[in-house]
């Protein structure tokens, strides 16, 4: 049982780390603001989601698991809003230029 739990953690956290790495490379390499935002939000949403998913089997109690999930949900909400705002600002800056 504990081996299965550890396996889930290992796989999911590694996959999350991969998304963070891919997102960071995208952030550094992509040509303009909108594509860079695209890379960044993928890293935030999927990367953090997978890390949380991987940590769930290690949570000591249901309460701790719920706290982990709410951390992910709050990060999703903040990430989505901020990337919308930045994208809007970038579009306005382009049209006024």
């Amino acid at each position, binding site marked *: 049982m504990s081996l299965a739990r550890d396996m889930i953690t290992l796989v999911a956290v590694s996959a999350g780390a991969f998304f963070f790495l891919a997102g960071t490379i995208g952030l550094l390499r992509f040509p303009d603001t909108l594509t860079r935002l695209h890379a960044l939000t993928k890293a935030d949403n999927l990367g953090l989601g997978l890390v949380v998913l991987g940590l769930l089997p290690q949570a000591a109690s249901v309460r701790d698991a719920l706290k982990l999930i709410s951390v992910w949900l709050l990060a999703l909400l903040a990430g989505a*809003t901020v990337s919308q705002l930045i994208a809007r600002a970038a579009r306005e800056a382009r049209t006024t230029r």
Partner: protein
Amino acid sequence: MNIASTFELMLAAVVLGLGIWTIAVHETYSAAVGFVAYGLLVALIWVRLDAVDVALTEAAISGGLGGVLLLGAAARLRHAELMVAEVPDRLTRVSAAVLSVMTAAALVGAVLWLPDSAPTLAPEVVANAWATSLTNPVTNVLMAFRAMDTMLEKVVLLLAIIGVWSLAPDTAWGGRPGPRHRADPNGVLVFLARLLPPAGIAIAVYILWTGANHPGGAFQGGAILAAMWLLAVMAGLTDTPAVGRRWLRLILVAGPALFLVVGLGGLWFGTAFLAYPTAQAKPLIVVIEVAMIQTIAATLGLLLTGAPERSAKP
């Protein structure tokens, strides 16, 4: 070398590099963004040092509210920067360099000459935790064993807000701080400002309450409350109150005033200033913290909205 110490070395190197970059970078805006990232990474270092209370405060103040303050300042300075290309003369730069080198040398000396087993009161704090029936040693130190320092810190916050207010022009004296923000009522910012505060307020109250036994407390909770209020202000959902309002000033003095009353009560009924009777220690601390979280939230929020700019009269 194991994974943990490799991670710590990397973290320290990144923080040092980011610190140097933040000082060296030319644009004010980039420096502000660098400082926010720096604050969040320093918070990670505090977590690695098992100082989660400090980490929470560092992330909330330096990464969050401090970042907003610096970004606002950078936005205001943007026009000034374009017009004035002021370069300090050689003498100023040489004296600044000498001062920096001397400060760095003093810090290096202080760190190198630390005694090998640092003097600590931590075991005594843990041994005397029974006196307050709180199990978080940080809260015990802040609210009981060194309560005097915490009370004076709240008075300093009050002085800071008076300092900010005194920058107001005569016409706006006692008026509303900051500009009136407007945002698209159907936009994402307004949506977030409607959705997030209920969760944020619940989390702030939780952090205040859990501070008795786990990392957390009035300062961290107050910072979250202030952030929720600022979000609503920036989305244009609410306006900043005129700073001359009586209720606002009552909230601002509530924390330190109650602290002072409890302290004098200790002098009157008990043995010393701020001495709590053991049986009532926890209820008294909770009451002070509840008053303090409101004072802290109001003070931090008002510090960020800045000096009054608009007259209270329409």
